Protein backbone atom coordinates (compact mmCIF):
# COMPACT_ATOMS: atom_id res chain seq x y z
CA UNK A 1 0.00 0.00 0.00
CA UNK A 2 2.76 2.34 1.03
CA UNK A 3 4.69 1.38 -2.07
CA UNK A 4 1.77 2.24 -4.36
CA UNK A 5 1.29 5.55 -2.59
CA UNK A 6 4.95 6.41 -2.99
CA UNK A 7 4.79 5.45 -6.63
CA UNK A 8 1.80 7.71 -7.23
CA UNK A 9 3.45 10.53 -5.34
CA UNK A 10 6.65 10.21 -7.32
CA UNK A 11 4.69 10.14 -10.54
CA UNK A 12 2.87 13.34 -9.63
CA UNK A 13 6.05 15.10 -8.60
CA UNK A 14 7.75 14.02 -11.80
CA UNK A 15 4.83 15.14 -13.97
CA UNK A 16 4.86 18.43 -12.12
CA UNK A 17 8.49 19.23 -12.79
CA UNK A 18 8.53 22.23 -15.13
CA UNK A 19 10.30 20.68 -18.16
CA UNK A 20 8.16 17.55 -18.15
CA UNK A 21 5.00 19.54 -17.58
CA UNK A 22 5.85 21.74 -20.51
CA UNK A 23 6.44 18.69 -22.69
CA UNK A 24 3.21 16.86 -21.94
CA UNK A 25 1.09 19.98 -21.86
CA UNK A 26 2.31 20.86 -25.36
CA UNK A 27 0.99 17.50 -26.48
CA UNK A 28 -2.44 17.72 -24.89
CA UNK A 29 -3.02 21.43 -25.48
CA UNK A 30 -4.44 21.12 -29.04
CA UNK A 31 -6.78 18.34 -27.91
CA UNK A 32 -7.88 20.31 -24.90
CA UNK A 33 -8.43 23.36 -27.08
CA UNK A 34 -10.57 21.40 -29.52
CA UNK A 35 -12.67 19.51 -26.96
CA UNK A 36 -13.23 22.41 -24.58
CA UNK A 37 -14.25 24.88 -27.26
CA UNK A 38 -16.56 22.32 -28.90
CA UNK A 39 -18.37 21.45 -25.69
CA UNK A 40 -18.52 25.12 -24.70
CA UNK A 41 -20.01 26.24 -28.01
CA UNK A 42 -22.42 23.30 -28.30
CA UNK A 43 -23.66 23.84 -24.75
CA UNK A 44 -24.19 27.54 -25.31
CA UNK A 45 -25.93 27.03 -28.67
CA UNK A 46 -28.21 24.38 -27.19
CA UNK A 47 -29.06 26.57 -24.26
CA UNK A 48 -29.47 29.82 -26.14
CA UNK A 49 -31.40 28.54 -29.16
CA UNK A 50 -32.95 25.09 -28.73
CA UNK A 51 -34.06 24.90 -25.13
CA UNK A 52 -37.69 25.86 -24.47
CA UNK A 53 -38.71 29.31 -23.31
CA UNK A 54 -39.46 29.78 -19.63
CA UNK A 55 -43.17 30.47 -19.04
CA UNK A 56 -42.56 33.04 -16.32
CA UNK A 57 -39.45 34.91 -17.37
CA UNK A 58 -39.58 34.51 -21.14
CA UNK A 59 -36.37 34.37 -23.07
CA UNK A 60 -34.36 36.36 -20.55
CA UNK A 61 -33.93 33.23 -18.45
CA UNK A 62 -31.45 32.02 -21.08
CA UNK A 63 -28.80 34.07 -19.27
CA UNK A 64 -28.82 31.15 -16.83
CA UNK A 65 -26.63 29.21 -19.26
CA UNK A 66 -23.89 31.80 -18.78
CA UNK A 67 -24.59 32.98 -15.26
CA UNK A 68 -24.94 29.72 -13.33
CA UNK A 69 -21.88 27.91 -14.76
CA UNK A 70 -19.63 30.90 -14.17
CA UNK A 71 -20.89 31.29 -10.60
CA UNK A 72 -20.22 27.59 -9.99
CA UNK A 73 -16.75 27.97 -11.48
CA UNK A 74 -16.01 31.03 -9.38
CA UNK A 75 -16.57 29.00 -6.23
CA UNK A 76 -15.00 25.73 -7.29
CA UNK A 77 -11.86 27.47 -8.53
CA UNK A 78 -11.45 28.84 -5.03
CA UNK A 79 -11.75 25.31 -3.65
CA UNK A 80 -9.14 24.18 -6.16
CA UNK A 81 -6.88 27.04 -5.08
CA UNK A 82 -7.24 26.10 -1.43
CA UNK A 83 -6.21 22.51 -2.21
CA UNK A 84 -3.21 23.82 -4.13
CA UNK A 85 -2.45 26.14 -1.24
CA UNK A 86 -2.48 23.26 1.21
CA UNK A 87 -0.10 21.26 -0.99
CA UNK A 88 2.16 24.29 -1.39
CA UNK A 89 2.29 24.92 2.31
CA UNK A 90 2.75 21.35 3.50
CA UNK A 91 4.89 19.71 0.84
CA UNK A 92 6.37 22.81 -0.82
CA UNK A 93 5.63 21.44 -4.27
CA UNK A 94 6.72 24.18 -6.64
CA UNK A 95 4.20 23.51 -9.39
CA UNK A 96 1.21 23.69 -7.06
CA UNK A 97 2.21 27.21 -6.10
CA UNK A 98 2.31 28.14 -9.75
CA UNK A 99 -1.08 26.46 -10.25
CA UNK A 100 -2.46 28.53 -7.38
CA UNK A 101 -1.06 31.70 -8.88
CA UNK A 102 -2.37 31.01 -12.37
CA UNK A 103 -5.82 29.92 -11.17
CA UNK A 104 -6.44 33.18 -9.28
CA UNK A 105 -7.04 35.52 -12.26
CA UNK A 106 -9.24 32.91 -13.94
CA UNK A 107 -11.35 32.54 -10.82
CA UNK A 108 -11.62 36.30 -10.55
CA UNK A 109 -12.72 36.49 -14.19
CA UNK A 110 -15.44 33.90 -13.76
CA UNK A 111 -16.67 35.59 -10.62
CA UNK A 112 -16.72 38.88 -12.49
CA UNK A 113 -18.71 37.26 -15.33
CA UNK A 114 -21.19 35.88 -12.78
CA UNK A 115 -21.56 39.30 -11.18
CA UNK A 116 -22.01 41.19 -14.45
CA UNK A 117 -24.42 38.72 -16.04
CA UNK A 118 -26.34 38.47 -12.78
CA UNK A 119 -26.73 42.21 -12.71
CA UNK A 120 -27.86 42.24 -16.36
CA UNK A 121 -30.34 39.45 -15.58
CA UNK A 122 -31.61 41.39 -12.59
CA UNK A 123 -32.61 44.41 -14.65
CA UNK A 124 -35.52 42.81 -16.58
CA UNK A 125 -36.61 40.40 -13.83
CA UNK A 126 -36.24 42.41 -10.62
CA UNK A 127 -36.22 45.89 -12.15
CA UNK A 128 -32.84 46.96 -10.78
CA UNK A 129 -29.25 46.32 -11.71
CA UNK A 130 -28.16 45.46 -8.22
CA UNK A 131 -29.88 44.15 -5.12
CA UNK A 132 -28.16 43.68 -1.77
CA UNK A 133 -29.25 40.10 -1.68
CA UNK A 134 -27.38 37.30 0.07
CA UNK A 135 -25.92 35.53 -2.93
CA UNK A 136 -24.95 38.67 -4.78
CA UNK A 137 -23.20 40.00 -1.72
CA UNK A 138 -21.27 36.82 -1.03
CA UNK A 139 -20.22 36.61 -4.67
CA UNK A 140 -19.02 40.21 -4.50
CA UNK A 141 -16.99 39.41 -1.40
CA UNK A 142 -15.56 36.36 -3.15
CA UNK A 143 -14.44 38.68 -5.91
CA UNK A 144 -12.77 40.96 -3.38
CA UNK A 145 -10.94 37.99 -1.88
CA UNK A 146 -9.69 37.01 -5.33
CA UNK A 147 -8.56 40.59 -5.82
CA UNK A 148 -6.73 40.52 -2.48
CA UNK A 149 -4.93 37.32 -3.47
CA UNK A 150 -3.87 38.71 -6.85
CA UNK A 151 -2.77 41.98 -5.26
CA UNK A 152 -0.72 40.22 -2.60
CA UNK A 153 1.00 38.03 -5.16
CA UNK A 154 1.96 40.96 -7.35
CA UNK A 155 3.32 42.94 -4.41
CA UNK A 156 5.97 40.36 -3.48
CA UNK A 157 8.98 40.22 -5.77
CA UNK A 158 10.27 36.78 -4.88
CA UNK A 159 7.78 34.57 -6.69
CA UNK A 160 8.15 31.38 -4.66
CA UNK A 161 7.68 33.44 -1.52
CA UNK A 162 4.62 35.07 -3.08
CA UNK A 163 3.19 31.63 -3.88
CA UNK A 164 3.46 30.62 -0.26
CA UNK A 165 1.99 33.91 0.91
CA UNK A 166 -1.12 33.46 -1.22
CA UNK A 167 -1.37 29.81 -0.20
CA UNK A 168 -1.82 31.04 3.38
CA UNK A 169 -4.40 33.56 2.24
CA UNK A 170 -6.33 30.97 0.23
CA UNK A 171 -6.47 28.69 3.27
CA UNK A 172 -7.87 31.51 5.39
CA UNK A 173 -10.33 32.18 2.58
CA UNK A 174 -11.62 28.64 2.30
CA UNK A 175 -12.25 28.58 6.04
CA UNK A 176 -14.09 31.87 6.07
CA UNK A 177 -16.14 31.68 2.85
CA UNK A 178 -18.74 29.25 4.31
CA UNK A 179 -19.09 31.58 7.29
CA UNK A 180 -19.57 34.54 4.96
CA UNK A 181 -22.22 32.64 3.01
CA UNK A 182 -24.11 31.60 6.15
CA UNK A 183 -23.95 35.01 7.77
CA UNK A 184 -25.03 36.75 4.62
CA UNK A 185 -27.91 34.27 4.21
CA UNK A 186 -29.73 35.82 7.14
CA UNK A 187 -30.68 38.77 5.07
CA UNK A 188 -33.98 38.87 3.27
CA UNK A 189 -33.21 37.00 0.11
CA UNK A 190 -34.59 37.77 -3.32
CA UNK A 191 -32.55 35.35 -5.33
CA UNK A 192 -34.15 32.15 -6.57
CA UNK A 193 -32.95 29.04 -4.72
CA UNK A 194 -30.01 27.34 -6.33
CA UNK A 195 -30.70 25.42 -9.49
CA UNK A 196 -28.22 22.68 -8.89
CA UNK A 197 -28.03 20.31 -6.01
CA UNK A 198 -26.13 17.09 -5.80
CA UNK A 199 -28.57 15.45 -3.44
CA UNK A 200 -32.02 16.31 -4.72
CA UNK A 201 -33.76 16.06 -8.07
CA UNK A 202 -33.54 19.13 -10.31
CA UNK A 203 -36.42 21.59 -10.14
CA UNK A 204 -36.25 22.41 -13.85
CA UNK A 205 -37.54 20.41 -16.77
CA UNK A 206 -34.95 18.11 -18.39
CA UNK A 207 -35.09 20.20 -21.56
CA UNK A 208 -33.64 23.12 -19.67
CA UNK A 209 -31.55 21.07 -17.28
CA UNK A 210 -29.54 19.07 -19.79
CA UNK A 211 -28.06 22.03 -21.69
CA UNK A 212 -27.22 23.66 -18.37
CA UNK A 213 -25.31 20.55 -17.36
CA UNK A 214 -23.46 20.60 -20.67
CA UNK A 215 -22.66 24.29 -20.19
CA UNK A 216 -21.21 23.61 -16.76
CA UNK A 217 -19.05 20.86 -18.25
CA UNK A 218 -17.97 23.20 -21.03
CA UNK A 219 -17.05 25.90 -18.54
CA UNK A 220 -14.98 23.44 -16.53
CA UNK A 221 -13.15 22.41 -19.69
CA UNK A 222 -12.56 26.06 -20.57
CA UNK A 223 -11.14 26.52 -17.10
CA UNK A 224 -8.79 23.60 -17.68
CA UNK A 225 -7.72 25.16 -20.97
CA UNK A 226 -7.13 28.60 -19.49
CA UNK A 227 -5.30 27.11 -16.53
CA UNK A 228 -2.98 25.12 -18.79
CA UNK A 229 -2.20 28.19 -20.87
CA UNK A 230 -1.59 30.37 -17.82
CA UNK A 231 0.55 27.72 -16.16
CA UNK A 232 2.68 27.26 -19.27
CA UNK A 233 3.30 30.99 -19.43
CA UNK A 234 4.08 31.07 -15.71
CA UNK A 235 6.49 28.13 -15.91
CA UNK A 236 8.39 29.62 -18.83
CA UNK A 237 8.61 33.06 -17.20
CA UNK A 238 9.93 31.67 -13.93
CA UNK A 239 12.47 29.39 -15.56
CA UNK A 240 13.43 31.44 -18.57
CA UNK A 241 17.11 31.23 -17.78
CA UNK A 242 17.15 27.46 -17.51
CA UNK A 243 18.46 25.34 -20.33
CA UNK A 244 15.29 23.31 -20.90
CA UNK A 245 13.41 26.45 -21.88
CA UNK A 246 15.80 27.22 -24.69
CA UNK A 247 15.75 23.58 -25.78
CA UNK A 248 12.05 22.85 -25.67
CA UNK A 249 10.31 26.16 -25.96
CA UNK A 250 12.66 27.96 -28.32
CA UNK A 251 13.90 24.85 -30.15
CA UNK A 252 17.47 26.01 -29.82
CA UNK A 253 20.33 23.61 -29.36
CA UNK A 254 23.12 25.07 -27.30
Amino acid at each position, binding site marked *: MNKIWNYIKDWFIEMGSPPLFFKWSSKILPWLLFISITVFIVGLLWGLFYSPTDYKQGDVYRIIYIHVPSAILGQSIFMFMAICGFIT*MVWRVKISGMLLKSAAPIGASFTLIALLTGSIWGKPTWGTWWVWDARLTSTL*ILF*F*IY*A*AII*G*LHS*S*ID*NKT*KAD*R*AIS*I*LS*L*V*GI*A*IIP*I*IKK*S*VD*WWQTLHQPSTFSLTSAPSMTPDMYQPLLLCVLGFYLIFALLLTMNLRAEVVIREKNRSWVSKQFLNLER
Partner: protein
Amino acid sequence: MKSNIYNWFFLILRRDLLMAFRRSSTYITPLIFFLIVISFFPIALSPDQDFLRSLAPGVIWIAALLSSLLAIETIFSEDFRDGTLDEFFISNDPSFVLVFAKVLCHWLVTGFPILLASLISSLILYLPVSSLLPMICSLILGTFFMSLLGAIGAALSLGKSAILSAIIVLPFSIPTLLMGTAAVSSAIDYQDYSGFLLIMGAMLAIGVPGLCLLTVEAILLNYE
Protein backbone atom coordinates in the same frame (compact mmCIF):
# COMPACT_ATOMS: atom_id res chain seq x y z
CA MET B 1 7.70 22.96 30.83
CA LYS B 2 4.28 24.40 31.43
CA SER B 3 5.44 27.31 33.54
CA ASN B 4 8.03 28.02 30.90
CA ILE B 5 5.39 28.79 28.29
CA TYR B 6 3.48 30.99 30.68
CA ASN B 7 6.63 32.87 31.59
CA TRP B 8 7.40 33.38 27.93
CA PHE B 9 3.87 34.56 27.23
CA PHE B 10 3.82 37.08 30.06
CA LEU B 11 7.31 38.26 29.22
CA ILE B 12 6.28 39.18 25.67
CA LEU B 13 2.99 40.66 26.82
CA ARG B 14 4.63 42.80 29.47
CA ARG B 15 7.33 44.01 27.13
CA ASP B 16 4.88 44.96 24.39
CA LEU B 17 2.46 46.64 26.75
CA LEU B 18 5.27 48.65 28.30
CA MET B 19 6.46 49.75 24.91
CA ALA B 20 2.93 50.67 23.91
CA PHE B 21 2.28 52.72 27.04
CA ARG B 22 5.57 54.60 26.86
CA ARG B 23 4.34 56.01 23.57
CA SER B 24 0.88 57.36 24.14
CA SER B 25 0.05 57.67 20.43
CA THR B 26 -0.40 53.90 20.10
CA TYR B 27 -3.52 53.83 22.21
CA ILE B 28 -4.75 57.39 21.75
CA THR B 29 -4.73 57.50 17.95
CA PRO B 30 -7.25 54.68 17.33
CA LEU B 31 -9.49 56.12 20.00
CA ILE B 32 -9.52 59.61 18.48
CA PHE B 33 -9.93 58.16 15.00
CA PHE B 34 -12.93 56.14 16.17
CA LEU B 35 -14.60 59.18 17.73
CA ILE B 36 -13.95 61.36 14.69
CA VAL B 37 -15.43 58.80 12.31
CA ILE B 38 -18.47 58.38 14.57
CA SER B 39 -19.09 62.10 14.79
CA PHE B 40 -18.86 62.48 11.01
CA PHE B 41 -21.98 60.42 10.42
CA PRO B 42 -24.50 62.76 12.08
CA ILE B 43 -22.78 65.73 10.44
CA ALA B 44 -22.82 64.19 6.98
CA LEU B 45 -26.19 62.43 7.01
CA SER B 46 -28.74 63.94 9.38
CA PRO B 47 -28.95 64.74 13.10
CA ASP B 48 -32.42 63.20 13.29
CA GLN B 49 -32.73 60.95 16.38
CA ASP B 50 -34.67 58.00 14.97
CA PHE B 51 -32.59 57.94 11.83
CA LEU B 52 -29.33 57.91 13.80
CA ARG B 53 -30.60 55.21 16.12
CA SER B 54 -31.34 52.91 13.20
CA LEU B 55 -27.92 53.68 11.75
CA ALA B 56 -25.93 53.42 14.97
CA PRO B 57 -24.97 49.69 15.05
CA GLY B 58 -23.52 49.82 11.57
CA VAL B 59 -21.72 53.10 12.15
CA ILE B 60 -20.13 51.95 15.38
CA TRP B 61 -19.05 48.67 13.84
CA ILE B 62 -17.53 50.19 10.71
CA ALA B 63 -15.63 52.71 12.82
CA ALA B 64 -14.42 49.93 15.13
CA LEU B 65 -13.20 47.82 12.19
CA LEU B 66 -11.35 50.69 10.58
CA SER B 67 -9.73 51.93 13.74
CA SER B 68 -8.59 48.47 14.81
CA LEU B 69 -6.95 48.11 11.40
CA LEU B 70 -5.35 51.53 11.67
CA ALA B 71 -2.39 50.51 13.79
CA ILE B 72 -2.19 46.90 12.70
CA GLU B 73 0.93 47.07 10.57
CA THR B 74 2.99 48.15 13.58
CA ILE B 75 2.26 44.84 15.31
CA PHE B 76 5.27 43.09 13.76
CA SER B 77 7.01 45.68 11.60
CA GLU B 78 9.02 47.44 14.30
CA ASP B 79 10.31 44.22 15.83
CA PHE B 80 11.03 42.95 12.35
CA ARG B 81 13.03 46.03 11.43
CA ASP B 82 15.26 46.14 14.50
CA GLY B 83 15.81 42.39 14.52
CA THR B 84 14.00 41.56 17.76
CA LEU B 85 11.66 39.26 15.88
CA ASP B 86 14.63 37.24 14.59
CA GLU B 87 15.80 36.72 18.16
CA PHE B 88 12.33 35.57 19.20
CA PHE B 89 12.23 33.03 16.42
CA ILE B 90 15.76 31.80 17.04
CA SER B 91 14.99 31.15 20.71
CA ASN B 92 13.48 27.77 21.40
CA ASP B 93 10.27 29.14 22.83
CA PRO B 94 7.09 28.48 20.84
CA SER B 95 6.44 31.15 18.23
CA PHE B 96 2.73 30.41 18.37
CA VAL B 97 2.64 31.85 21.87
CA LEU B 98 4.60 34.85 20.71
CA VAL B 99 2.02 35.65 18.03
CA PHE B 100 -0.84 35.18 20.46
CA ALA B 101 0.78 37.48 23.00
CA LYS B 102 1.35 40.13 20.36
CA VAL B 103 -2.26 39.91 19.19
CA LEU B 104 -3.54 40.13 22.75
CA CYS B 105 -1.34 43.17 23.36
CA HIS B 106 -2.64 44.81 20.19
CA TRP B 107 -6.18 44.16 21.30
CA LEU B 108 -5.55 45.58 24.75
CA VAL B 109 -4.01 48.68 23.24
CA THR B 110 -6.54 49.39 20.46
CA GLY B 111 -9.63 47.23 21.05
CA PHE B 112 -10.07 48.08 24.69
CA PRO B 113 -10.05 51.89 24.27
CA ILE B 114 -12.54 51.42 21.43
CA LEU B 115 -14.85 49.61 23.86
CA LEU B 116 -14.81 52.62 26.15
CA ALA B 117 -15.27 55.00 23.24
CA SER B 118 -18.23 52.99 21.98
CA LEU B 119 -20.02 53.78 25.24
CA ILE B 120 -19.63 57.49 24.53
CA SER B 121 -20.65 57.06 20.91
CA SER B 122 -23.79 55.19 21.94
CA LEU B 123 -24.82 58.41 23.71
CA ILE B 124 -24.03 60.51 20.66
CA LEU B 125 -25.98 58.22 18.36
CA TYR B 126 -28.98 57.80 20.75
CA LEU B 127 -28.62 54.05 21.21
CA PRO B 128 -31.10 52.70 23.80
CA VAL B 129 -29.55 51.50 27.06
CA SER B 130 -30.85 47.96 26.52
CA SER B 131 -28.54 47.49 23.54
CA LEU B 132 -25.39 48.46 25.42
CA LEU B 133 -24.68 44.96 26.72
CA PRO B 134 -24.83 43.19 23.33
CA MET B 135 -22.81 46.00 21.80
CA ILE B 136 -20.02 45.63 24.34
CA CYS B 137 -20.06 41.81 24.14
CA SER B 138 -20.03 41.75 20.35
CA LEU B 139 -17.30 44.38 20.22
CA ILE B 140 -15.11 42.37 22.61
CA LEU B 141 -15.45 39.24 20.46
CA GLY B 142 -15.34 41.07 17.16
CA THR B 143 -12.38 43.37 17.72
CA PHE B 144 -10.34 40.45 19.03
CA PHE B 145 -11.12 38.51 15.88
CA MET B 146 -10.16 41.58 13.87
CA SER B 147 -6.83 41.77 15.70
CA LEU B 148 -6.17 38.14 14.78
CA LEU B 149 -7.05 38.73 11.14
CA GLY B 150 -5.05 41.94 11.13
CA ALA B 151 -2.02 40.09 12.47
CA ILE B 152 -2.08 37.72 9.50
CA GLY B 153 -2.50 40.63 7.11
CA ALA B 154 0.37 42.49 8.76
CA ALA B 155 2.58 39.41 8.64
CA LEU B 156 1.86 38.84 4.95
CA SER B 157 2.51 42.46 4.02
CA LEU B 158 5.54 42.91 6.26
CA GLY B 159 7.65 45.71 4.84
CA LYS B 160 4.98 46.65 2.30
CA SER B 161 2.47 49.48 2.27
CA ALA B 162 -0.12 49.61 5.03
CA ILE B 163 -3.01 49.78 2.58
CA LEU B 164 -2.14 46.30 1.30
CA SER B 165 -2.77 44.71 4.67
CA ALA B 166 -6.12 46.52 4.86
CA ILE B 167 -7.11 45.17 1.44
CA ILE B 168 -6.11 41.67 2.50
CA VAL B 169 -7.98 41.81 5.78
CA LEU B 170 -11.18 43.73 5.00
CA PRO B 171 -12.94 41.11 2.81
CA PHE B 172 -12.43 38.53 5.54
CA SER B 173 -13.96 40.78 8.18
CA ILE B 174 -17.46 40.71 6.66
CA PRO B 175 -18.88 37.94 8.94
CA THR B 176 -17.75 39.83 12.02
CA LEU B 177 -19.30 43.04 10.75
CA LEU B 178 -22.58 41.37 9.82
CA MET B 179 -22.87 39.40 13.04
CA GLY B 180 -21.95 42.37 15.23
CA THR B 181 -24.43 44.76 13.63
CA ALA B 182 -27.10 42.04 13.66
CA ALA B 183 -26.61 41.49 17.39
CA VAL B 184 -26.89 45.19 18.23
CA SER B 185 -29.82 45.92 15.93
CA SER B 186 -31.79 42.90 17.12
CA ALA B 187 -31.26 44.13 20.67
CA ILE B 188 -32.72 47.49 19.61
CA ASP B 189 -35.80 45.63 18.34
CA TYR B 190 -36.04 43.66 21.62
CA GLN B 191 -35.23 40.37 19.93
CA ASP B 192 -32.96 37.56 21.03
CA TYR B 193 -29.36 38.32 20.14
CA SER B 194 -27.52 35.47 21.87
CA GLY B 195 -27.22 33.42 18.68
CA PHE B 196 -25.07 36.04 16.96
CA LEU B 197 -22.79 36.32 19.97
CA LEU B 198 -22.43 32.54 20.13
CA ILE B 199 -21.38 32.37 16.50
CA MET B 200 -18.89 35.18 16.99
CA GLY B 201 -17.49 33.31 19.98
CA ALA B 202 -17.23 30.13 17.91
CA MET B 203 -15.35 32.00 15.18
CA LEU B 204 -12.98 33.36 17.77
CA ALA B 205 -12.46 29.90 19.27
CA ILE B 206 -11.50 28.50 15.87
CA GLY B 207 -9.60 31.62 14.91
CA VAL B 208 -7.21 31.75 17.86
CA PRO B 209 -5.38 28.51 17.08
CA GLY B 210 -5.89 28.51 13.31
CA LEU B 211 -5.03 32.10 12.52
CA CYS B 212 -2.13 32.21 14.98
CA LEU B 213 -0.53 29.17 13.35
CA LEU B 214 -1.00 30.62 9.87
CA THR B 215 0.46 33.92 11.10
CA VAL B 216 3.57 32.10 12.30
CA GLU B 217 3.85 30.56 8.85
CA ALA B 218 3.40 33.98 7.25
CA ILE B 219 6.12 35.57 9.37
CA LEU B 220 8.51 32.72 8.58
CA LEU B 221 8.11 33.59 4.89
CA ASN B 222 10.24 36.66 5.52
CA TYR B 223 13.19 34.59 6.72
CA GLU B 224 14.14 32.71 3.58
